[in-house]
């Protein structure tokens, strides 16, 4: 009878489901698990960051050092992937179960402060200490970490971008003294000489391409914000020129050609998986942390670093700065422990001890006291190429993201604008006008909402 058959079959399905679940559970229990807490008796401080692979190891080590340095708190470091990392944090704070502290590197502070997600950190220290720190910090660390006169993010590693290049490649192209040309235009010309193609005109080796739009604007002017008037500056001749330069560079090679080339090489940002190490780039723009990676994964590679040369009429020693900064969300269960950890890592109270931590990840210091600490100086002596970045730190031509409450939206749209121009889908003029319009609409919407800015 059919019923019996189907019934038996159904029984078997349920049985298989059960067995599968059981076997799975057994396997999952048998496999190794992440370690349990080392100090179960201490107050837990949950720390989120976005580093993976070998960077994760560095961060775990720092957390470990903190845990050994005192006996009250245990920092538990958890790695959250960078894409969607913001969303995860927002969800966690909104959901009422935030971490105690998070290391971020995206320009999230203004948006999140305005939404009431972050605690002001200046209120966690005595006024005298805050006054001291305020005057000690590198100006760029202030620009990154402060919003509306309060400190929300303490940088535990500033990031600057500059050129990495292979002197051998330069020599092969007829540059005798291993130095980059004095202007950006000449650098592009040199890069073009170093590009290599296969028989089908496919790019196989890249001479030089700059980083994205946001990173290119400081070379040409003030970027997207006038810090004195506190106004956004989007459609400016400088920004247009920056976009045009970038678009020209991509159009010359063909955007599609570049994108295919990059898809075909290991682009993972960790260990040896950096196209500069594998020899696919001659000159590239990247952050100072690569020095540490080069030392580990390509100790014999001959390379040099230098600030990007200014375009004609542009700005010298210009760069975009990002920061790895620590934030403490509202609703954190243990803000005191979080703050202890922030102080430990950033070196606010003990710059000498913290200097070593900065060198572990190849990060730039929060304030000169750290730069001058013996451990940091020793590091500079060991890696002279790192000095390029440290020397750039006091430069006035270093920009960061504008401190407006819709920074996340702004940076999302800036990168789309750059993308449009680089792909050649719109002229630079159109793309930048489009960006200006989008931002004006966002401002108008916020006004209708009754926000102050």
């Amino acid at each position, binding site marked *: 009878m059919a019923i019996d058959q*189907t019934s038996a079959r159904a029984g078997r*399905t349920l049985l298989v*489901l059960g067995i*599968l679940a059981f076997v799975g559970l057994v396997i999952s229990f048998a*496999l*190794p698990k992440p370690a349990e807490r080392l100090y179960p008796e201490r107050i837990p401080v949950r720390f989120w960051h976005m580093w993976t692979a070998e960077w994760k190891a560095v961060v775990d080590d720092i957390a470990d050092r903190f845990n050994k340095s005192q006996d009250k708190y245990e920092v538990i470091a958890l790695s959250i*992937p960078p894409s969607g990392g913001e969303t995860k944090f927002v*969800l966690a704070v909104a*959901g009422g179960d935030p971490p105690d502290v998070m290391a971020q590197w995206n320009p999230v502070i203004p948006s999140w402060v305005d939404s009431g997600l972050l605690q002001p950190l200046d209120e966690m220290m005595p006024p005298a200490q805050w006054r001291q720190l305020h005057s000690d910090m590198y100006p760029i660390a202030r620009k990154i970490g402060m919003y509306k006169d309060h400190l929300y993010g303490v940088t535990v590693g500033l990031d600057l971008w500059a050129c990495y290049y292979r002197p051998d490649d330069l020599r092969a192209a007829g540059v005798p003294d291993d130095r980059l040309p004095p202007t950006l235009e000449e650098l592009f010309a040199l890069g073009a000489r170093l590009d290599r193609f296969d028989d089908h005109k496919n790019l196989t080796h890249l001479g030089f391409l700059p980083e994205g739009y946001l990173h290119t604007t400081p070379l040409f002017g003030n970027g997207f914000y006038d810090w004195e008037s506190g106004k956004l500056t989007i459609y400016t001749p400088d920004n247009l020129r920056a976009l045009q330069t970038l678009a020209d560079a991509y159009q010359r090679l063909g955007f599609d050609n570049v994108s295919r080339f990059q898809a075909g090489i290991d682009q993972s940002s960790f260990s040896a998986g950096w196209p500069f190490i594998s020899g696919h780039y001659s000159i590239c723009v990247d952050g100072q942390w690569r020095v540490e990676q080069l030392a580990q994964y390509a100790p014999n590679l001959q390379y040099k670093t230098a600030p990007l040369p200014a375009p004609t009429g542009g700005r010298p020693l210009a760069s975009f700065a990002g920061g790895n900064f620590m934030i403490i969300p509202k609703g954190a269960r243990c803000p005191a422990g979080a703050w202890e950890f922030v102080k430990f890592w950033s070196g606010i109270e003990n710059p000498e001890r913290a200097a070593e931590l900065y060198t572990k990840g190849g990060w730039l210091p929060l304030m000169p006291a750290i730069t001058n600490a013996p451990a940091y100086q020793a590091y500079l002596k060991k890696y002279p190429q790192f000095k390029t970045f440290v020397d750039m730190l006091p430069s006035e031509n270093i920009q960061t993201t504008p401190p407006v409450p819709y920074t996340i939206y702004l940076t999302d749209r800036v990168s789309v604008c750059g993308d449009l121009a680089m792909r050649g889908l719109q002229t630079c003029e159109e793309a930048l006008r489009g960006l200006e319009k989008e931002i004006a609409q966002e401002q108008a919407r916020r006004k209708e909402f009754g926000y102050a800015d």
Partner: protein
Amino acid sequence: MPTEALATAPVEPLHAPERRPARLRPSVGGTPTLSRTQKLITHAVLLLLCVPFVLPLVWMLCTSLKPETDIYSEKQPANAVQYLISMLPAHARWQNYPEALQTVPFATYLQNTLFLCICNVLFAVLSSAVVAYGFARINFKGREAWFMLMISTMALPDQVTMIPVFGFFRKLGLYGTFMPLILPALFGNAFFIFLLRQFFRTIPDELTEAARIDGATEWGIFWQIMLPLAKPALATCALFQFLSTWNDFFGPLLYINDPNRYTLAYGLQQFMSSYGGKWALLMAGACIFTIPIIILFFFAQKTFIQGISTTGSKA
């Protein structure tokens, strides 16, 4: 409303009467038999069509066994056949699997996923069966209206309720726990209720009347008579729920906070996001995630196919 057509749709019991012998079954356009040439052509067409369906899976498996260096090698094969041969790993590198398991705690993810699957399957199937019984066998006032309402909720986009439901779980302090991913299952699943209701309606009244005369309660009839009879339909629902929980990405994306509570679906996406470019490891991860489902399919093939088929013919 989607209700109308679903309700007026032809209804057929799950345990459909035995079909006619295979030999007599109609083929396309009712051609009973194919000539030899026609058969050969059909085979050729089907084989060709199989290629795009099967190749991605083979490629996933092959990549998961390759060393990373082979993946980025720039050899130029001369023709398509040579290319396809070159995609086979020269030596299977099984280490990719332990490496993938070490890079991210897949074991933890597996455990969480299974925990959620078990809870969801048990809760959703049982609660749906109870509700379906009410809709199918008890004649109460407003039954049809409620049923229509239930059917129409299937068309309601989740986005509409997403934010208030999130707020609800937040108020209860359940954000970051497994509860938001389990609790809703306790209240039945509209689709399962629909399927089970159709099933219960096909069971002859005589079976239950006898029990009722013997003084059995409604619950007793449901629990002791109906539920055992409904095993095929329950198995279908269990399978569907298992798959949907196994696959669920949006739930953990929204509600899971602590990496120790990630599920496989969410963990795999996070893995991809963190280790983009490490294709061999990624594919090993994808295999770990997919293979259990394929095993499940081969053991419970009939329930799979039958469950899906009835889905359509119920409508």
